[in-house]
């Protein structure tokens, strides 16, 4: 059971120490400046242009929203899985083709106009949180497109998705040949300038890869250090000095989620030989202050210090959102007990400003909005 307003951290049964780990670093001669201006993306192609080709789709007949001041239906028709937020947290986007004659594309519903979606762009792609870059994997090379002016480059990486540094100067991706046995797959982490130039290997792991950027210079990486160990290591790799800081080493890492400023990392351990280690953990990205939490569930960060989670409680009549503050250790419930909903397919996402959650409601497969205070 969950109790509100309590300290949730329990003493870590075997808190991993901050330690250096030894993964294979590929020598590089990189001297990429830390915060240069964004590169010009000079290789222009026929990029889709406007992202404002708005075409109003037929608006469904309005129906009363369920009686809740803070929980409201955002879309109907069961159309919209895998939603993502616009940077201003005022609209939600999703892939759709609302009618047989409408184009497939990314559609947008504004929070102030629920159930009325409009075409945002026909360019279906993976977008950055800021919607400033789009990428479309292709065998000839992933197309990386700057949304503001449509300039596009091809990253010669066989169609793998890339991760863009916060300062928009560099990209990383993981190259893994899908050979067997899986546990011996070698993963090579590649780094390049954002225009794809100067690609270089920076690191190799076994069956791992880069999870993302913590800031402009540090990467969150996981993988096995060698074939002599069955454990995977989650560690922070600093591109400036090639240092590696271990966060945790475990048999089964299931979820890794860095906070929005890169200060903290949430992760889950499962099926560990030491049962006391299994569960949800947080640690600072400098490898200190690792702690196992006395609740379990999927989490998403609200900012650099607070995350929202859904308690994993089988057969509970409803789901609930809770917040945990890593700096104070306080947990509090965000949804009232009388607010009945369940999330479908684990499909929920927190807005960029941390003030809202959109989720697919299992009752009707529609998008619903939960406003937070």
């Amino acid at each position: 059971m969950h109790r509100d307003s309590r300290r949730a951290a329990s003493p870590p049964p075997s808190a991993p120490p901050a330690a250096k780990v030894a993964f294979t670093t590929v020598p590089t001669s990189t001297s990429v400046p830390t915060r240069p201006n964004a590169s010009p993306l000079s290789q222009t192609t026929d990029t889709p242009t406007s992202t404002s080709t708005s075409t109003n789709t037929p608006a469904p007949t309005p129906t009363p929203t369920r009686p809740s001041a803070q929980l409201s239906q955002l879309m109907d028709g069961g159309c919209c899985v895998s939603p993502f937020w616009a940077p201003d947290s005022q609209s939600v986007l999703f892939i759709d083709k609302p009618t047989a004659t409408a184009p497939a594309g990314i559609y947008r519903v504004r929070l102030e106009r629920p159930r009325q979606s409009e075409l945002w762009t026909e360019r279906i792609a993976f977008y950055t949180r800021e919607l400033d870059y789009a990428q479309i994997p292709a065998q000839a090379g992933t197309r990386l497109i700057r949304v503001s002016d449509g300039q596009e480059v091809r990253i010669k990486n066989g169609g793998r998705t890339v991760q863009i540094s916060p300062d928009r100067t560099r990209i990383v991706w993981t190259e893994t040949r899908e050979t067997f046995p899986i546990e011996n797959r070698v993963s090579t982490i590649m780094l390049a300038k954002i225009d794809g130039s100067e690609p270089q290997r920076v690191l190799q792991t076994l069956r791992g890869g880069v999870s993302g950027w913590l800031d402009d210079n540090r990467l969150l990486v996981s993988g096995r250090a060698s074939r002599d160990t069955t454990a995977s290591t989650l560690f922070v790799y600093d591109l400036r000095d090639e240092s590696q800081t271990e966060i945790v080493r475990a048999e089964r890492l299931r979820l890794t989620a860095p906070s929005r400023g890169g200060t903290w990392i949430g992760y889950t351990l499962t099926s560990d030989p030491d049962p006391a280690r299994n569960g949800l953990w947080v640690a600072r990205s400098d490898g200190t202050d690792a702690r196992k939490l006395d609740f379990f569930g999927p989490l998403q960060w609200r900012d650099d210090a607070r995350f929202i989670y859904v308690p994993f409680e089988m057969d509970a009549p409803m789901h609930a959102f809770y917040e945990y503050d890593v700096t104070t250790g306080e947990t509090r419930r965000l949804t009232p007990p009388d607010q009945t909903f369940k999330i479908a397919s684990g499909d929920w996402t927190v807005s960029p400003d941390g003030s809202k959650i959109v989720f697919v409601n299992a009752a009707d497969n529609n998008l619903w909005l939960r406003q937070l205070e």
Partner: protein
Amino acid sequence: MRSVFLYCGMLVFTLLALVPQNTLAGSPPPQTETKPFILPFDSPPGPVTWLLGQMYGNTTGAYGNRRNFYAAGQGLHFGLDFSAACGTPIVAIGDGVVIGADGPWGSAPHNLLINHANGWMSMYGHLLEKPKLKAGERVQQGQPVALSGDPDATCHSRPHLHLEIRDAKNTKFVNPINLIAADWDTLALFGQFGRGFERDLDNPRQWQTLYDQPDGLRGAPLLNEYAKPWPPAFDFR
């Protein structure tokens, strides 16, 4: 075939418009509906025991391997994966009679096939060892029948149980979620590796929920050889 799907999609869309709000079709079966089977574990889910892995159906993972691993099931992930440490006890999902162990039913290194009296068979794959049950032996729902293992037989590669429900003729695979009584919405909070279900951009609403996934017919043509897939998948071998 694609036009049939499009037609069906349009028909469903039309029907949806006729259904009262908040009771839409495509939503989970009513909780009062009786499902004949139980989960294949006698322990509750969690980080110590087991969690949901890959879903049944048109998953992105299956789409990426539709021409090899999943070609026999029309490009679908024609079972349900449960992440579990090697040696986790597995129970029969229903009363039945053992057809055999380590038969030609896939999911190496060891498997078990049970015939149920209700027209369905259950297949438990990637087992740790050959089950000790004999063909013709009766089992009861909830009875331990096997131990979970690892398809790579190492127990630290990707240990999981692969569970299939097939028709009695062994020609059709169906979505276990619609036949097993469980709180799937909560299980799915920690399920679904990868990016969910593959999209056909000519009909992107099709087959996008846990419950709404197609049956798979053994040896029939791929269901997801899309002209406009999302996300695209490539051969990284």
